[in-house]
């Protein structure tokens, strides 16, 4: 598979990851692009120890951390104002608002596991924690989301 095809297959989940974490499209697009630029540079060093998805999301996470140090999360989020193209609009907007009100760490584990379908081990490898720690974080994030959503 060509590198471009590989990236194209992961473009949507990476963009969704950034959009749900940073809350606005321009930043999400910029970060997604930066992730793939770095992946190009790092492609020769990729030894296949993990899946390509874990590798790409590991890069995405580092890009996000650098951007957060540069004040990325100080900007306002537009996430909850976005209308839904599918499903029950009210339910989805409520869910998006509830999700957007969570902390970044909670949103990250929920995105990886419950939205993008990572297994606990894969998500743990991406986040850089043990699977046990990830499970604890995931449980807490789910609890908090449920509390906010029900309220």
């Amino acid at each position, binding site marked *: 598979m060509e590198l471009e095809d590989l990236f194209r297959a992961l*473009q949507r989940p990476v963009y969704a990851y950034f959009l749900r974490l940073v809350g606005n*499209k321009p930043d999400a697009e910029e970060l997604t692009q930066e992730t793939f630029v770095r992946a190009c*540079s790092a492609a020769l060093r990729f030894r296949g120890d993990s899946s390509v998805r874990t590798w790409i999301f590991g890069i995405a996470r580092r890009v996000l951390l650098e951007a957060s140090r540069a004040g990325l999360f100080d900007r306002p989020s537009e996430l909850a104002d976005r209308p*839904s193209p*599918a499903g029950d609009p009210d339910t989805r907007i409520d869910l998006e608002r509830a999700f957007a009100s969570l902390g970044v760490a909670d949103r990250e584990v929920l*995105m990886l596991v419950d939205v993008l379908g990572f297994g606990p081990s894969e998500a743990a490898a991406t986040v850089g924690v043990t699977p046990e720690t990830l499970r604890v974080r995931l449980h807490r994030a789910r609890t908090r989301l449920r509390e906010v959503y029900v309220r």
Partner: protein
Amino acid sequence: MSEDMPMDLKALGDIESPEVVREALRRFRRRALRNGIWFLVAALLIGSWVVIGRSRVTLEERIQRALGVAPGAVYTVGNMTATLVRVADLGDVPDLGHRVGIHVLVVAQPRESAGSDTYTLVFQHEAGTLSVGTSTRLNARAFDHWIQIVVPADAKVPVDVYRECSGQACVPRQSTSIGTFTIDLRALGVPENIWR
């Protein structure tokens, strides 16, 4: 809603992504090109620096090549003799004046003490003088000293001689002034166009 069951969040991933891969690849190529250019520039700079460093003429070579005279004067201070081998015209330095290169051969006679002596010549930094020098040791008792200075108006260049005794016979190691001699360029008949 059960406490154990996660909520269905799949809908949050249902997002249309803009086309970023093509632009990312373009950006990567631009960045790679830019880094390549920087690497090339850095390599060229380092290469030039190495070449310039290798081709740089030493003070010794400059004194030997420049227009000069060989006065052959011998100065004795203690058991050290300094022979004025060459005085050469090194040209002008902006704001500093005319530079003269001096080559002195220093030979120390052995003393009775068991220690070994090291001699140092210090060309006095009086008003208007600038001295930069190097030494080349020839053997245990002799060394060449090469220096460039701006000669004072009276053409007299005072030189302090220091002796440092080292070895078991002279612990603690110490440096002592053992005297001064003056190179009088006018008295030695060095043409004025060389030192003024």
